[in-house]
């Protein structure tokens, strides 16, 4: 890094970075999906921190002057002390911090762990699991003595946090992963200074409407007779999946993807998070689903809804950290 710093750079060349925290790596890959435009991006900007694609050390970032990075994309939730430390460091070093992807915006799939205790997660990961072979019950230790002293590993937090729980966020790009073409538009708007004032509440690279608005499937205005899971039946092509009984999160989910999953005859999973004005995506979905059940009596309605397997994982799949209840008792 020291050589790159010494290089004279054109004054207008931007410095961008991307960091991954508690994420799967899909967000980094999704940015590469802009394809040949990546070269345009590299023409316009220097990448000064992106652990997924190049070798950068935390010390390099710590050595940058404050607000050195013009734009930093942060993907993944905050789950450990290391991630929190880097989130704070990046906030200090960047002019614009963008929460990139469902995990950084709303907790994402990792935040479903908030319904479990850390002890329970350790038990399932290291002790009681059919696929495990750990007769000595070995667990990772916070401190490991070695020849030259003690090694410590980052501490696990009892919850997955959104980026905005830890530091101030300027913009949010939801999606799991965000759709590259829209991200590109957002980057161009960001670079051109065309975005509105920084505000954590502003979600960019998406629309304000629900997925149903963009969905191409035909609505026949019938009510749900019985719930089905995607592995139990083959959906009829071209017909609204919700009306067929598959739980499609479309009505309670912000669009931006253009209905990608429903185009492939798969129910929407809700990755873009709630629409404007809604905090709790799961509750919004319960409200929507409740109004289209074909049940005349309360008993029938109860019977139908009790057939839904794992309601928490279905309705809060990407937004547990943003939900009202935040966790499980």
């Amino acid at each position, binding site marked *: 890094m020291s050589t790159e710093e010494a290089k004279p750079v054109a004054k207008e060349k931007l410095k961008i970075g991307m960091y991954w925290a508690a994420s799967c790596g899909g967000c980094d890959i999704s940015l590469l999906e802009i394809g040949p435009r990546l070269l345009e991006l590299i023409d316009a900007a220097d990448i000064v921190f992106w652990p997924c694609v190049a070798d950068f050390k935390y010390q390099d970032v710590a050595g940058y002057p404050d607000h050195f990075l013009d734009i930093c994309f942060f993907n993944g939730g905050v789950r450990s002390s290391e991630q929190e430390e880097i989130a704070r460091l990046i906030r200090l070093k960047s002019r614009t911090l963008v929460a990139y992807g469902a995990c950084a915006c709303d907790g994402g799939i990792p935040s479903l762990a908030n319904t479990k205790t850390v002890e329970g997660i350790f038990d399932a990961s290291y002790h009681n699991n059919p696929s495990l072979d750990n007769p000595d019950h070995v667990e990772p230790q916070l401190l490991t003595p070695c020849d030259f002293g003690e090694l410590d590993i980052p501490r696990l937090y009892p919850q997955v946090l959104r980026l905005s729980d830890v530091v101030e966020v300027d913009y949010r790009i939801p999606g799991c992963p965000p759709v590259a073409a829209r991200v590109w538009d957002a980057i161009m708007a960001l670079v051109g200074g065309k975005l509105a004032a920084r505000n954590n509440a502003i979600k960019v690279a998406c629309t304000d409407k629900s997925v149903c608005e963009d969905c191409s499937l035909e609505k026949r205005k019938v009510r749900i007779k019985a719930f089905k899971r995607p592995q139990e039946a083959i959906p009829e092509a071209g017909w609204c999946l919700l009306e067929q009984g598959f739980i499609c999160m479309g009505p309670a989910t912000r669009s931006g993807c253009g209905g990608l999953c429903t185009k492939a005859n798969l129910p929407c999973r809700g990755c873009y998070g709630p629409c404007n004005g809604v905090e709790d995506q799961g509750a919004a979905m319960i409200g929507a689903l409740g109004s289209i059940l074909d049940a005349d009596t309360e008993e029938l309605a109860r019977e139908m*809804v009790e057939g839904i397997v794992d309601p928490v994982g279905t309705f809060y799949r990407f937004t547990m950290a943003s939900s009202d209840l935040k966790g499980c008792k």
Partner: protein
Amino acid sequence: MAEMPTNQDKTKYGGESWEPRIIAFLCYWCSYTGADNAGTARLKYPANVDIIRVMCSGRIDPELITTAFSQGADGVMVCGCHIGDCHYISGNHKTMARMPLLKHTLIELGIEPERFVHEWVSAAEGEKFARLVREVTENVRRLGPLNWPQQMRERGVGHGMDLRPWGESP
């Protein structure tokens, strides 16, 4: 009427003076009038219930109920007109399907089924309303405080305010 718990006592969760705090969403046309009826008839019921009047039970967004629990309610009641009596014709048909679904989800999240009650109360059923409040209050009292904010804080789940890493003593 039971002795009125002061506002301070109500929020002192888990203490000796703990009183269940129950939020009741009542529809304007039937259930609220039913509660009014209970009052006019001088029926006794516990003062633990905080009534919120809405125009129709079909208007009660599940988010209102999750918000009530997340902000410290020990129990939530939802009452509307009997099926067929809805002033807006089909508002309560939506409630009828939504509330069991919400209950199913809340149970998965660890909230006991007795804490969330959904019943039909007509304008003439003051007696039923008073009985319902008595039952719910007793059930919740037996279960003890829910105190969701405190529980989440203890487990380290919150709004990013208590970042105590796992494995570190407080």
